C-alpha cells in the first residue's frame, strides 16, 4: 500500500490551468464559496428558529432546558478536538508525510463516530419521551411551542448530522488516499479542502450548541 511512486508537481496540473498555483487558488476559492452556500443553508434554519423562539419564548426556553446539556458539551469538545487533529493531519501533508495525515484523519473520523454515538443516545431518549416534531409530539404539553421546538431541533441537528456523515466520508477517502501517497508536499489541496469542510461542520456545531442547548 505504500509503494506508490511519488507524483511530480506537473502530474497534478489539469490541462486548462496555466500553473499549479492558479489551480490551487481556484480550488481554494471554489471551496470557500461552497462553504458560504452551506452556511446560508443553515442560516435559513437558524432564522426560522429565531422567529419561533421569539414567538414562543417560554415554551422554547422550557424545552431547551429539557435537553441534556452535558451531551451537547461533550459533543462540542469532541468536535473541536477532531478539528484539531484534522489540522495536525494537514500539517503532516504539508511536509509530504501521507501516513501521518492518514493517522490523524483516522483519529478525527473516530471522533466523528463518538459524536454520532452521543447523538444516537440523545435521539433515542427523545423518541422514548415522545419529544417529537409537530403532530408526533407526545411529551408533556408545555404549549404549542414545544412541538415546534422539536421540529426545528430535529431539522437543525439532523441536517448537521448529515454533514457530519458526509465529512467523515470525505476524511476517510482523502485520508486513505493520502496514506497511499497520492499527494505530495507540492500539491496537497484535496487534504486542505477536506480539512476545511470538517472545520465548517465543526463551526456550525459551535453555533448550534449555544442556540439550542444553552440559551
Amino acid at each position: 500500500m505504500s509503494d506508490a511512486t511519488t507524483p511530480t508537481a506537473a502530474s497534478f496540473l489539469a490541462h486548462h490551468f496555466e500553473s499549479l498555483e492558479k489551480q490551487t487558488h481556484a480550488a481554494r476559492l471554489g471551496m470557500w464559496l461552497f462553504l458560504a452556500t452551506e452556511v446560508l443553508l443553515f442560516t435559513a434554519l437558524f432564522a426560522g428558529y429565531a422567529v419561533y423562539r421569539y414567538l414562543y419564548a417560554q415554551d422554547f426556553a422550557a424545552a431547551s432546558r429539557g435537553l441534556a446539556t452535558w451531551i451537547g458539551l461533550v459533543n462540542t469538545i469532541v468536535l473541536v478536538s477532531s478539528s484539531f487533529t484534522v489540522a495536525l493531519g494537514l500539517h503532516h501533508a504539508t511536509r509530504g508525510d501521507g501516513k501521518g495525515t492518514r493517522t490523524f484523519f483516522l483519529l478525527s473520523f473516530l471522533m466523528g463516530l463518538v459524536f454520532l454515538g452521543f447523538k444516537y443516545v440523545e435521539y433515542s431518549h427523545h423518541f422514548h419521551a415522545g419529544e417529537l416534531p409537530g403532530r408526533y409530539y407526545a411529551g408533556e404539553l408545555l404549549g404549542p411551542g414545544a412541538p415546534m421546538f422539536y421540529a426545528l431541533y430535529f431539522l437543525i441537528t439532523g441536517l448537521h448530522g448529515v454533514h457530519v456523515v458526509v465529512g467523515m466520508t470525505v476524511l476517510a477517502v482523502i485520508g486513505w488516499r493520502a496514506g497511499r501517497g497520492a499527494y505530495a508536499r507540492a500539491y496537497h489541496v484535496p487534504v486542505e479542502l477536506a480539512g476545511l469542510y470538517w472545520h465548517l461542520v465543526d463551526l456550525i456545531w459551535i453555533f448550534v450548541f449555544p442556540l439550542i442547548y444553552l440559551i
Partner: protein
Amino acid sequence: MNDLLRRILFLPPQASEYARQVDALHYFVILTTMVGAAGVFAAALYFFVRYRRRSDSDVTPHVAPRFVHELLFVGGPLALFVLWFAIGYPQYVRLSLPPKDAMDVYVQGKQWMWKFAYPGGPNAIDTLRVPAGRPVRLLITSRDVIHSFFVPALRVKQDALPGRYTQTWFTADRPGRYEIFCTEYCGLSHSSMLGQLVVMPPAEFDQWIAEQRRGLEVAQDSTPRPGERVLPASSLVDEGRRVAAEQGCLKCHSVDGTRHVGPTWSDLYGRDERLATGKTVQADEAYLTKSMMDPAADVVAGYQNVMPTYQGRLSPPEAAAIVEFIKSLRTSALGAGPSEPPAYESVPARK
C-alpha cells in the same frame, strides 16, 4: 379629467375618497412614466436615424461620460421615484390605521366564500352591507388557507390569514353594489370566491341592521348554504357568552371582577395589562385573540401559564364572539344593549 383618465386606464368606479386619491397618484405615475419613456425612445429613435451605418468601414469616436452625466442619470429617476413614494407611502400608512370611530365588521374567508359578522350579531355570506359615509373597519381572518379580500372600487385589499387577524378600513361614499374578489390563490374554486359589497344610504342601513338585530328578518343573501355552520342570528355577545361557557373559559375567568385562576374579563377590554415579562400591553382585539390561540405568549403578571391553546378548538366566528362578549363586560356598559357601537383604540397592523 378624472373620468376621462379613469376610462382610458380601465379603472373601475371610485367608491371612496381614498380611491380617488389613489387614482390621482396613479394618473401622475402613468403620465410621468409615459413622458420619461417617450424621452428615452425619442432619443433612441433619433440616434437610429442620425447615426445609421453609412459604410461598412465606419469608425466611431470614443465617447466617455463625464461624472455629471452619470449623476444626472441617477439623480433624475431618483427624484421622480422618491416623489412617487412620498405620495404613495402616506396613503398606505393611512390605510393601515383605521379611525377610532369606525364600525367593525368581522370578515372570514373560507374555501370558497366570504362570511361577514356584525358586532350586533347579524351575519351574512358573500354580501357585505355597509352604510355610506361612515368608516368601516374590517377585521379579517381565514378558516383554512390564505385568502385576500379585494374590492377594486375601493382600491383596498388585505390578506386573510389563518390563525390571526389583519385589518383594513374604508369609507364608501357612493351607494351601490361593488364586486369583492379573492386575490390570493386558494384552490379549485378560487375564481368563484366572489362577494358583493352593498353600500347603502346610512338611514337604510340603520334600519336594516336594526331589523337584523331584532332577528325579525333574515336577509335573503345570508341564507346559509348546505353544510355551512352559521351562528344563530342572535346577538354576537350572547353567542360569545354561550361559547365561553361551553368551552370552559368561565371556569378560570370571572366576569364580575373577582380574582380567579385567570385574569377577570370584567373591564378587561381596553385595559393596560402588565405582563410577566415586565412589558405592558393594551388588551385590544388583537391581544385577546392572540391570548386564546397562544396563551403562553403574553402572560399577565401574577398569573401562572396554565391555559391550553384554543387554536383549532375555536372557529374564528366563535373567537370573534368571545371577543365581543368580553367587550360587553365593561362596568359602564353593563346593562346597555348590544347595539352600542364598539369603542377601541386602533391597533397598528401586526406583522
